[in-house]
């Protein structure tokens, strides 16, 4: 009976680990299967030339102070029974949205953003206040909200297109699977997580979060197998039976929680179903630049900059390999406590997976060089005083993302078809993580928790 479990979780990312902790906590026999050799999924880490580097995590959204009630972060810590202090969070110094004619600042204090919006868009005062009110009163985590275009709803309150685009820019690029728009529920989740709650960084970066989750899960008796990619999700008459691993081994379970994405889950089913969730179109490149000096040595104090030089902000798959006209620039040194030895800048461009995927190895290297040049150009435009050459660079492309996440099309925010209640046409098979629709690291963990509670722990779920 070794290969029989109550629940199998596919993927040891944030959502899978959080779900695993909940199930192990209440004595379920649970197994996490991870294709790679380390945990983390989209938010992982690596070391290169003695440097510890993070993948995915620029910052944690959803900052909350210790004991702050009813916030997603404190909720999830309670559900996982991890004391607040163990995350060792450091708050951001301050971030910016920079467009051709206007710049808006924000921090973890909403007043900073509100004051700047009202100063630069005085005619939008009533509209902006109405938007804040609408957001506060909206139940974004309800699992049965129908899709509603956020752009349309916000346009009914805010008339100035430039202000709308500036508000949408960080929210789209930090989480939208949809091009140029998002579901209003997702908009509210993102707005709260970024503008109302804000950015912080755990000391030690993403490693700290993953190691906390792994330790907790193992202490509760949860099992995890690395290098164990799932080859097939097995069902009979649309009822889940278990999974088959890449090595042919079959493992049985009455519930399977899949964090690998909705289209990826469906394409692994042994029984064909009608459903065909769309593959999202958004992918990215990321440039990591390390310097001998720290940004603060040059008087640079920004934590994250959402930069756009296009007259209108385009959040969509570019028709070129990458869109060098807009970027997210993250300066991970610029949190309360800086635990890096180097100065570091991380720069994200929107990119086109298909074009990257079609390149020959030689062309690929050349295009990566172009990403590096474009990255340095943006750093130079933003911070002309940082006249130092980087001492280390590394670049990810959409094909790197595909390789490490197995997401179709190298997507980061998954499919545009979410399963909000986690259900699939297969009984006992549930979607958790990005394609269940809660976003960011905190969202991913909450997704795992809420789906485990709803489908595996609550009365009547068995």
């Amino acid at each position, binding site marked *: 009976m070794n290969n029989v479990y109550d629940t199998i979780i596919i993927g040891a990312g944030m959502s899978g680990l959080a779900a695993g902790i909940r199930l192990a906590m*209440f004595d379920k026999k649970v197994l996490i299967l991870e294709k790679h050799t380390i945990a983390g999924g989209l938010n992982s880490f690596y070391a290169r030339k003695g440097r510890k580097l993070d993948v995915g995590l620029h910052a944690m959204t959803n900052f909350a102070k*210790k004991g702050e009630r009813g916030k997603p972060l*404190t*909720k999830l810590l309670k*559900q996982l029974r*991890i*004391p607040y202090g163990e995350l060792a969070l450091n708050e951001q110094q301050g971030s910016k949205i920079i467009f051709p004619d206007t710049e808006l600042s924000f921090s973890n204090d909403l007043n900073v953003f509100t004051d700047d919006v009202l100063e630069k868009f005085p005619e939008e005062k009533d509209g902006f206040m109405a938007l804040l009110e609408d957001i506060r009163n909206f139940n974004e985590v309800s699992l049965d909200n129908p899709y509603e275009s956020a752009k349309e709803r916000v346009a009914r309150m805010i008339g100035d297109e430039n202000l709308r685009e500036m508000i949408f820019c960080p929210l789209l690029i930090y989480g939208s699977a949809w091009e140029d728009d998002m579901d209003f529920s997702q908009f509210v989740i993102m707005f709260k997580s970024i503008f109302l709650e804000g950015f912080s960084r755990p000391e030690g970066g993403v490693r700290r979060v993953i190691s906390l989750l792994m330790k907790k899960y193992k202490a509760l008796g949860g099992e995890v197998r690395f290098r164990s990619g799932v080859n097939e999700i097995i069902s009979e008459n649309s009822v889940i039976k278990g999974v088959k691993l890449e090595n042919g081994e079959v493992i049985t379970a009455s519930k399977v929680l899949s964090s690998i994405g909705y289209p990826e889950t469906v394409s692994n089913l042994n029984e064909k179903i009608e459903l065909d969730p769309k593959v999202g179109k958004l992918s990215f490149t990321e440039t990591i630049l390390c310097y001998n000096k720290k940004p603060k040595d040059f008087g640079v104090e920004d934590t994250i900059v959402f930069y756009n030089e296009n007259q209108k902000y385009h959040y969509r798959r570019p028709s070129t390999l990458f869109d060098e006209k807009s970027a997210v620039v993250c300066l991970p040194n610029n949190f309360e406590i800086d635990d890096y030895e180097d100065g570091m800048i991380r720069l994200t461009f929107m990119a086109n997976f298909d074009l990257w995927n079609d390149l020959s190895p030689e062309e690929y290297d050349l295009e990566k060089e172009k990403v590096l040049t474009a990255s340095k150009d943006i750093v130079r435009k933003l911070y002309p005083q940082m006249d130092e050459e980087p001492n280390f660079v590394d670049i990810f492309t959409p094909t790197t993302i595909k390789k490490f996440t197995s997401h179709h099309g190298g997507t980061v925010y998954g499919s545009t078809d979410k399963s909000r209640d986690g259900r699939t046409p297969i009984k006992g098979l549930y979607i958790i993580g990005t394609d269940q629709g809660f976003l960011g690291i905190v969202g991913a963990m909450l997704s795992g928790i809420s789906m485990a509670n709803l489908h595996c*722990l609550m*009365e009547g779920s068995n």
Partner: protein
Amino acid sequence: METTEVRQKVLDIIADIAMDDDVTTIDDSVALRDQLDLDSMDFLDIVMELKKRHKIIVPEADYPKLASMDSCVEYLTPKFVQ
């Protein structure tokens, strides 16, 4: 079982769930929700811990009886005796 023992057992559960709250100052007559950061997901945890630690099943209809420490003790004491 004495009511003080029952109170302690409930308190142990709450202390494990509301890790960052001070549970030593709970007013037994006031709703737990009003004193601690507990939402419906956390009440579900109290129910599941009662089952896990003490084999006590609380049907959904009885969840309101777990509202305050006083009502918890009153409701759970006979169940601990069984």
